[in-house]
């Protein structure tokens, strides 16, 4: 098998764009579609990653109108390899969300528009389901690739922290943000991964480590993590384990200490960092502009920052609180220690096996079912995606079952810098699995 991407002739292009725009009116996959003809292999890019000459809003009103004058390194490397960006995909504002609903026009599930697409890389998952042979460059901080990939029946690959340069990525939480990919074939994902990984002189945290594929034949199931999920999801997951066991995978059930603290630890770290990363939005150099310069700068900034959505405001306020000198130890430093403790404990198993679990603890919810849940309820939905994200372990959500026409995803985790083993696993899985999509254009 080899990678195969959609590329279009001049005559096909106009038709494709009109089909895409039509579908986008229903699904809100894209914040921006570039109608200029593209000669390369078509990819899309999450709207928090800079593409020169295209708007970059991270679905935030405060970035409305921002047009970066430079490319993210990941985008630049792909363009150098013959890829063309078709547009910028919808997302939860700044990556703040698990369902894609923190956007002015939330993306909808391509299998059924009453359902959520998942978040925060909602549009990247929808675009991938929708467009033939597609890969979308996405980004995950705490589960933003796995969640929408699982809900939209596509594959979401989140590489090791630092494997891909973050230069040009609009920061949410710098010690957690990872550029990754959503696609629907192991070969395509491998191709884009190979072309983007590697140290970048413009990003201190990008790494030159060799990415390996040591393929274990052991699958660890973390019982104390999986015990709290929806019973029917558990049943489907048991079926999956049976299938994998038949493929010669040895399954072992284990417990990992401290995992119950991973979600609060994750939110503490991510909100702290987010509250500093969002300090730059002040309403005059780019994006939303406060017209009245005669306002005192404090009032000016306050006025600009009204443009943040509710979840962004919530996280900035909480993050500011957590960073306060007098309580920093209580939350922030504790969370750093928990991250360290969990990494060590998960590594013990990742040393000779994958860790496998469902991607999400629930079936794809209807938009109406989750639009009013409390923040703590929403954050708790990340219980399965947070551990590998908090710890920077490469992981991948892949579709494994269709329940009443809706896809279900499972998540497989491997050790740092062993990312390619996930794709080897996927290649093997694909040999006995058929992806289903409601429609595909291109």
């Amino acid at each position, binding site marked *: 098998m080899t990678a195969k991407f959609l590329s279009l002739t001049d005559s096909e292009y106009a038709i494709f764009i009109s089909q895409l725009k039509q579908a986008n009116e229903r699904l809100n996959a894209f914040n921006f579609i570039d109608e200029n003809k593209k000669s390369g292999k078509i990819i899309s890019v999450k709207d928090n990653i800079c593409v020169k000459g295209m708007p970059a809003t991270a679905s935030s009103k405060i970035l409305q109108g921002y047009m970066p004058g430079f490319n993210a390194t990941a985008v630049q490397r792909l363009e150098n390899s013959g890829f063309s960006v078709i547009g910028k995909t919808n997302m939860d504002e700044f990556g703040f969300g698990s369902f894609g609903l923190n956007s002015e026009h939330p993306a909808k599930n391509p299998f059924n528009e009453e359902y959520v697409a998942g978040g925060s890389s909602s549009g990247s998952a929808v675009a991938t389901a929708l467009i033939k042979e597609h890969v979308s460059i996405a980004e995950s901080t705490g589960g933003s690739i796995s969640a929408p990939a699982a809900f939209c029946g596509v594959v979401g690959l989140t590489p090791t922290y630092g494997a891909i340069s973050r230069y040009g990525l609009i920061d949410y939480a710098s010690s957690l943000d990872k550029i990754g990919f959503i696609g629907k074939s192991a070969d395509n994902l491998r191709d884009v991964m190979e072309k983007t990984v590697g*140290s970048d002189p413009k990003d201190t*945290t990008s790494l030159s480590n060799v990415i390996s594929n040591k393929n274990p034949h052991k699958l660890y199931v973390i019982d104390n993590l999986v015990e709290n999920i929806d019973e029917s999801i558990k049943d489907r997951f048991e079926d999956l384990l049976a299938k994998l066991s038949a493929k010669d995978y040895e399954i072992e059930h284990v417990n990992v200490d401290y995992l119950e603290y991973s979600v609060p630890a994750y939110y503490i770290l991510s909100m702290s960092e987010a509250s500093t990363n969002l300090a730059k939005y002040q309403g005059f150099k780019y994006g939303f*502009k406060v017209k009245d310069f005669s306002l005192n700068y404090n009032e000016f900034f*306050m006025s600009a920052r009204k443009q943040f959505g509710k979840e962004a405001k919530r996280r900035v*306020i*909480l993050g*500011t609180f957590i960073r306060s000198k007098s309580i920093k130890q209580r939350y922030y430093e*504790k969370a750093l220690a928990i991250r360290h403790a969990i990494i060590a404990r998960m590594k013990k198993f990742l040393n000779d096996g994958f860790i496998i679990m469902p991607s999400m603890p629930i079936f794809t919810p209807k938009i109406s079912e989750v639009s009013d849940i*409390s923040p703590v309820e929403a954050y708790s939905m990340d219980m399965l995606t947070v551990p590998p994200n908090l710890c920077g372990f490469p992981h991948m959500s892949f579709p494994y079952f269709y329940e009443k026409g809706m896809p279900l995803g499972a998540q497989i985790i491997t050790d740092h810098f062993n990312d390619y083993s996930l794709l080897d696993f996927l290649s093997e899985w694909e040999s006995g699995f058929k992806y289903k999509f409601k429609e595909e254009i291109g």
Partner: protein
Amino acid sequence: MLGIIVLYLKMEKGEFERLLKTARIELDEEEYSSIEKDINEILRFFDKLENVSLENEELAFHPVEIPEKLRDDSTENKNEIENIFYNGENYRFYFLGPKI
């Protein structure tokens, strides 16, 4: 031996107001009441960590080890940018900013 006393943080009104000022966030009435309530709920959720004692655990500032990366003191790899004034108001090569 003293037992472990778990103190749940509840954010007082004055504290909440101070945070809004520090973060330069202004809330309308609806946002104010709902976010104030959410925040206390979230803080209770975070206070789960009070049960963890990890005194000698190292702190993981990054999930993987990040070796140092330094630049030479030269202009050779200058970061590219097109049209710096495209996105902001400017006047005689200066960016225009709010009153100080």
